[in-house]
């Protein structure tokens, strides 16, 4: 039993990160119908910039803040320089553009920083906390709490603020949103900024546990993408559930079957879900109009 609890706890920790990456996908997808394969690079940037800012002598919270703001700025630049000029391009082109962006960011990071593996100290020490025979790192609690806080704030944002509703309206119908006077370009910029900032925050929270280097982004992007698909593309609630589910599944596979195939589990489940319910767990069913 403690074993199961242990796997569950580590699964939820990883799952919280996947959920944040999936949420980043979802925000951009809703605003622009683009699946941003560079989403994982935001997580990497969050961790890497924090590492180097704190190595430069800044206190950790300030370094983290700078990392999040800088990543948000990079997200906005990505939108302005690569996504907006390609509006209306076919899906294949958009996939290649965002994968190109991902490779570009990775290459640039490796030049600006280095190719080493880095970490910075956990926020509240490394003393594991005992829960019912299992242990959890204080940093894991930070990750989980961070993810929940982000989801809660976002829910407030989308339901309680005018601009949040404008984002939702744009997601539902871009042209109609423009007609009622919503500046959809601004909405897209905002979405990329938020999505990048959320990714960077995930990177800041998780780096003390998983460490970071210039090339961790792609794997995170694929997992986050998978989580978003699992939950149903474009649905924030789906991102949360999909992320947590994926994390727990991976932890269970690693624990009970084979740690080598823990990544495989994620993709097997995703294939199964896509075959059985092509729209994911919470997705909307599109109807062809003829």
């Amino acid at each position: 039993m403690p074993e199961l609890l242990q796997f569950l706890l580590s699964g939820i920790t990883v799952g919280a990160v996947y959920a944040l990456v999936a949420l980043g996908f979802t925000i951009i997808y809703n605003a622009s119908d683009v699946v941003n394969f560079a989403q994982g690079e935001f997580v990497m940037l969050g961790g890497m910039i924090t590492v180097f800012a704190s190595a430069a002598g800044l206190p950790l919270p300030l370094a983290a803040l700078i990392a999040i703001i800088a990543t948000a700025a990079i997200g906005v630049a990505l939108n302005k320089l690569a996504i907006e000029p390609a509006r209306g391009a076919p899906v294949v082109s958009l996939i290649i553009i965002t994968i190109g962006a991902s490779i570009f960011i990775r290459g640039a990071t490796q030049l600006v920083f280095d190719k080493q593996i880095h970490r910075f100290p956990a926020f509240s020490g490394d003393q594991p906390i005992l829960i019912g025979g299992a242990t959890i790192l204080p940093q894991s609690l930070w990750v989980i709490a961070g993810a929940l806080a982000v989801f809660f704030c976002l829910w407030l944002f989308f339901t309680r603020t005018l601009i949040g509703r404008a984002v939702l309206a744009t997601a539902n119908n871009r042209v109609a949103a423009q007609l009622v006077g919503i500046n959809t370009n601004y909405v897209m910029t905002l979405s990329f900024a938020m999505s990048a900032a959320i990714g960077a925050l995930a990177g800041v929270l998780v780096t003390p546990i998983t460490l970071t280097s210039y090339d961790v982004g792609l794997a995170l992007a694929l997992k986050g993408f998978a989580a978003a698909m699992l939950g149903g593309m474009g649905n924030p609630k789906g991102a949360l559930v999909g992320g947590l589910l994926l994390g727990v599944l991976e932890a269970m596979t690693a624990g009970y079957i084979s740690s080598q195939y823990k990544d495989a589990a994620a993709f097997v489940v995703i294939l199964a879900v896509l075959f059985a319910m092509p729209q994911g767990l919470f997705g909307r069913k599109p109807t062809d109009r003829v």
Partner: protein
Amino acid sequence: MIMRLSSKATTLLILAAVIAIAPFFFPSSYYFRVGSLIFVNGLAVTGLVILIGYAGQISLGHAGFAGIGAYACALAPIHLGLHPALAAILGALLSAAIAFLVGRPILRLKGYYLAVASLGFGILVSMVLSNEAQLTGGPDGMAVPELGLRAVLKAVGIDLSNTEFWYAFSGLALVLGAWLALNLYHSPTGRALRALHGSEVAARTVGVDVAHYKLVAFVISAIYASVSGSLLALQNKFITPDVAGFMHSIEMVTMAVLGGAGSVLGAILGAAILTTLPQVLTVFQEYEQLMLGLVMMLVMIFMREGLLPSVAHRIRGRGE
């Protein structure tokens, strides 16, 4: 201009001429090696032209089939005692069978969903190849036996160096692959594929069994990828799971779309550019990823149809 440019004979002629004449300008045998890499990649990409360009379906997992083709050449000679050439054929058949089984459910999906499903398939293949170390040698890779054709040629008086042989052999394979793909384009099957690309619902109403034809394109392109993987393994005499990796899948799709997924010649040009780029950039190795990413973005933003069709359009535009 476009009509003549895209006609079958002209495309094949240009391709064959370039392959035959280029060696006269090679300063060293290293260029034969780069050339044969281009042809091997070009072959896989020609298969993707059928899938992406003709049928309009994306796959981010075709390196999986290249992996199956490559490891068939490494494993079948050891475990089944097959000649490497037969092993390559076995790999192609296996890839076709797997594509047939996987393709049916996957191809019901569209757009991003299809992308992630195919991506998942490719990753699973590469994961099996790197994890089943007792069979595949794991991430360290494994040796591949000699094809043996070069020795046969030598016996009949054609003495080629190893790089020269592989340049000629994979060049031939590419011309053959291009010929088949071009035949298909102008055939009833090709029309059915392009029809469902243009409008699935209209294709159905003229009687096209859309699911069947998507599967046909998927299986054919899987065979191309598999043969490409086999050729790569045989000429390198060594293979690692990277051949089946996600990055290889992405490279293949990028090559196809970069040159112009709608045209065989364009896609081969894309393969040539993306294969040569890292060779040129080895001088600035740290900049390789930066440049690759930049090229991918710029071409897709400014030349949406891909290099060759965009340039051809511009030339035609000037002519009128």
